[in-house]
């Protein structure tokens, strides 16, 4: 899972039928990830009623598909939580004492 901020919303009439009821939001991953995603954004389905400006937890890959009422959603990213508060140890963000799991490559799988 990654932390990010919702910066936009997408509307699409023509879409895969399994996505018919999915709300699609544009998320900018937080800067703690290195290297940053090339496009600096990703699109994720939303089932927790997040809105623009919310900090969210985004799940990538297979677990993202196990959402909503179907486990066969053709998606690779889903918003699974709206963040109320985050505590980060600044020392853990330096290269030297990197906190495991935080300062690691941000892999979204697209365009590899």
């Amino acid at each position, binding site marked *: 899972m990654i932390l990010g901020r919702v*910066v*936009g*919303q*997408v*509307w*699409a*009439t*023509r*879409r*895969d039928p*399994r*996505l018919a009821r999915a709300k*699609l939001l*544009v998320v*900018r991953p937080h800067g703690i990830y290195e290297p940053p995603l*090339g*496009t*600096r*954004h*990703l*699109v*994720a389905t939303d089932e927790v009623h997040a809105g*623009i*400006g919310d900090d969210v937890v985004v799940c990538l*890959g*297979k677990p993202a*598909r196990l959402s909503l009422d179907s486990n*066969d*959603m*053709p*998606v*690779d*990213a889903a918003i699974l939580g709206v963040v109320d508060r985050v505590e980060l140890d600044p020392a853990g963000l330096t290269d030297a004492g990197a906190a495991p799991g935080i300062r690691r490559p941000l892999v*979204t*799988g*697209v*365009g*590899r």
Partner: protein
Amino acid sequence: MLLGRVVGRLWAARQASTLGGRKLLLVQPESASSARGGGAEAPSRLIVAVDGLDAGPGDRVIVAHGSRVRDLTVGADVADKDVVIAIVDDLEIAP
């Protein structure tokens, strides 16, 4: 998933049977700011995506990646893991 702009279509006379007959699109991934019209950003690599929705050049699309996504949409026999899953009508990006 990624937002991208379809910038072209790809034809190949000689291709593996696992791509046979599939419509292939060239997709330029967009950043959130360039999607908003905030000017050009560093170009990222073009994606060759399989089209399951009849998208065309100029369309803004959402591309999902992965073998399971591919299996669920265009079929398990296709040798491409990037699939167009939606054609964007409208987009709101916060300033």
